[in-house]
């Protein structure tokens, strides 16, 4: 546990230092959501209806933006070699890295949501629902994205490849995330059903993500 704790602490510390990139995702999220009312126009009802979808899209793209550095940074400076050689199982090390990435880059998106909800004319209930679904859904985006990050690790410009690989797998999360938010705001479906499926997607990704990432890292050795 010392080893995993050390890895999580190091990754968060690097992300929060200057040039670490933790804030890039939030700034991108902010930009997308702030621009949206200007593009849609002064139709408050339309904004309210689109709000959850805009917030979810922004969060999805923002989380993709920073994921490509998840393993490449460690690969470039040789840290990844030592992590693979260590006595900590690579699957657990991958899970720890994903958790650290979510804490540094995913959680800020959830925290920013209530502020951005104001710009989209969402009331307190709606904003709360979107924030709750993001809290349940963004870990899935990180753990699914980690698979793509591990596959693209040896490529110098793997960012776009990562997006192409990961986006199809992220679509279910997006669908049920937005469905749950809409259910809470306008109904008629109950909030519980899509939200449970969203949580289930997250739980599945916690199991599959680390194993798939560790396997592709081992196969990508060079």
């Amino acid at each position, binding site marked *: 546990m010392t080893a995993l704790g050390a890895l999580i602490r190091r990754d968060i510390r690097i992300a929060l230092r200057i040039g670490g990139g933790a804030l890039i995702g939030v700034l991108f999220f902010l930009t997308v959501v702030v621009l949206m009312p200007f593009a849609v126009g002064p139709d408050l009802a339309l904004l309210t209806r689109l709000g959850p979808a805009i917030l979810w899209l922004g969060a999805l793209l923002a989380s993709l933006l920073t994921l490509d550095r998840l393993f490449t940074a460690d690969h470039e400076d040789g840290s990844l070699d*030592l992590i693979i050689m260590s006595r900590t199982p690579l699957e657990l090390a991958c899970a720890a890295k994903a958790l650290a990435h979510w804490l540094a880059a995913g959680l800020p998106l959830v925290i920013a949501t209530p502020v951005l909800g104001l710009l989209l004319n969402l009331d307190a209930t709606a904003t709360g629902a979107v924030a709750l679904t993001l809290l349940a859904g963004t870990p899935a985006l990180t753990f699914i994205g980690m698979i793509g990050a591990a596959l693209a690790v040896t490529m110098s410009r793997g960012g776009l490849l990562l997006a192409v690989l990961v986006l199809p797998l992220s679509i279910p999360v997006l669908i049920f995330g937005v469905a749950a938010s809409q259910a809470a705001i306008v109904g008629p479906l109950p909030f519980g059903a899509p939200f449970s499926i969203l949580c289930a997607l997250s739980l599945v990704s916690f199991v599959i993500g680390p194993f798939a990432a560790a396997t592709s890292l081992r196969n990508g050795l060079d």
Partner: protein
Amino acid sequence: MQLSPRLIGHDVRCVRGGREVFSSLAFEARAGEALAVTGHNGAGKTSLLRLIAGLLLPAGGTIAIEGGEGELTVPEQAHYLGHRDALKPALSVRENLTFWADFLGGGMTRPIPDCLAAVGIAHAIDLPAGYLSAGQRRRLSLARLLAVPRLLWLLDEPTAALDVAGQAMFAGLMREHLAGGGLIVAATHGPLGIDTRELRIGS
């Protein structure tokens, strides 16, 4: 009876990018012995070290440690010091070394200031690693070998970027490691400053 540990490579074959780098390579190192891997550029010195470190898969043959620590694999009993120094420029010298000590050692570690003093960069302990010179970065990487005890040291050009005093310091550290029953496999072009057995690969 506890056997003294031996690193044994048997009939090792390495293929990179479809091209055979070397084949039928056999080597052996006993506790307290250093193996100097020599050969021309491209002969496969780094490849051999990465094979032993488990970072490349051998196309044939076996590499094993006999009489080592129980169930652990060869990479788990080894330190690998490659060309890339595994340091994060944003973190301080102390944070970098503390991380590797905690991550690799899991509690069994030497105090960080001791290790830094042993490699002669104790004065830079709170400096971000990004401000270190190439030689200082190398010294910080060497401190990792001291912070966590490991049986086998795999060193790829360990003296690169070290000044004369640094090379002498490092020779002393290697002698200590060997005296304590450790093993060293080092890829090198120049003299290491310790008694070694030469393993020449390539023609």
